[in-house]
């Protein structure tokens, strides 16, 4: 066993491990590391899927599908950055929207790295971030908040939202842009 392997093995038995270490172990077939990643992120994956689908059994299916994908294929952009939590949250949302629309995956995020401003593998930081983001979302104008929710969690296009809200498509796009810009400012502060 090489020094690196020994270090990884030792790391696998530590209480707190970063995502990169766990992913390296998962790539080598370490089931305990996979269980650690599951315990770290299953709740957010399930919660996002449940928010989109409003159906516990379907949300559970998304969780299973996503984590089995992670088990079989760790060579994705998140592997090189500490962005697994962000990737999983977004992948859960996209898979749920695909399931909602009963269409095949468009796999946008598989080709692109994510640039979250936080280390989501740290539970304390993750909880603090979620709280700050909730406050930031609450601070958005109610109409913007509703539009962003309709686009992100309901998967409605800006044209569909415009029809529902009786507004123009360009106004909806502007609202989405301003909401995201506001959230970005908050997350980088």
């Amino acid at each position, binding site marked *: 066993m090489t020094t690196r392997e020994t270090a990884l093995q030792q790391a696998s038995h530590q209480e707190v491990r970063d995502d990169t270490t766990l992913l390296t172990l998962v*790539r*080598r*077939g370490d*089931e*305990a590391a*996979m*269980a650690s990643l*599951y315990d770290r992120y*299953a*709740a*957010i994956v*399930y*919660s*996002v899927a*449940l*928010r989109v*689908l*409003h159906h*516990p*059994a*379907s949300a*559970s299916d998304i*969780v299973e599908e996503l984590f*089995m994908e992670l*088990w079989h294929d760790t060579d994705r952009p998140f592997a090189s950055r500490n*962005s697994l939590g*962000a990737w999983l*949250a*977004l992948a*859960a*949302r996209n898979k749920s*929207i*695909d399931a909602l629309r009963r269409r095949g995956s468009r796999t*946008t*995020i598989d080709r*692109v*790295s*994510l*640039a*979250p*401003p*936080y280390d*989501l593998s740290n539970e304390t930081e993750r909880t603090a*971030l*979620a709280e700050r*983001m909730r406050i930031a*979302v609450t601070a958005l104008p109610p109409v913007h908040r509703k539009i962003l929710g309709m*686009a*992100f969690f309901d*998967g*409605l*296009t*800006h044209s569909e939202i415009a029809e529902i809200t009786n507004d123009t498509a360009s106004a909806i*796009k*502007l609202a*989405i*842009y301003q909401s*995201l810009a506001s*959230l970005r400012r908050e*997350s980088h502060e």
Partner: protein
Amino acid sequence: MSVSSHYESVDLALFAMQLLQSEGHETVAAHVAGCPFCLEELAYLQGDLAMFAHTVEVHPSPAAVRERVLRRVAREKKVLPVEPVEPARPMIEPTPGGEPSEEPLLTFTTRGRHHAAAQSKHQLETSDPQRPAPGSSLRKLFLWLGWITAAGFAVAAVRLHQERDRYSAGISLQAAEIERLKEDAAGSKQVLETITNPEARHIQLSAVSTESLQTAPQGRAIYVPSKGALIFLANGLDRLQPDKTYELWLIPADGRDPIPAGTFYPDAQGNASVILPSLPRAIEAKAFGVTIEDGKGSQSPTLPIILAGS
């Protein structure tokens, strides 16, 4: 949508949310693949969206899903790539002059005869091939001792490796068992807290129509809105066809659509339960109902209602 040089952030945001029409989606994907500027902005946007995703109310993933995933992980072992092994390098002994000889001096013995696999020309001329050179017995002994020691180490290493794997597997199993017991204990505690919670609402559900049923089914729900905790017990239920399932519904008091609260199958005696399904918190319930749905359940109730109570 600007396509002259770079896409606007909002168009990339719609792309990231997969909200563009199929053709538009492919066009942006093709552009982004070759544009570092848009690629970087897209990465930031996806980071922003991921942050937004984290604003959802967090529900624990059902313990059964964890068990299912980890069982599949154990069953679907990964095929690890075999790392290339460097070919063994020939051993070259230095010549008396200090320079390495051009041919290897490695010797071996077969059936009592001593052979020179390859020797330098000088040695071939000065030594008798049938007669061992002085000190060669000792050298052979050390050579064999070396091989025996190496073989011993190899066997010990294999045994250690096997033992380590066995211990690792044992530890993993024990850890999983402890985790399961902890989850069971937490689940039991939550059930107890739900039942004894002073805010708990107790709802009796009765059959809406008993015409097609052999016995009148009935149910009882205990619901704590502030915690989204629900326990439901039913009896007298008819057995269903294999492709059908009972589904429990929470009908919110604020007029929203019914929320699915879990699917279930009755046992041979017609008893069934739904224990602590994942429900959003702070939803005041106007009523509960039970319907029969296809397969894994539905996202909206299908009439007729079998049991109802408010």
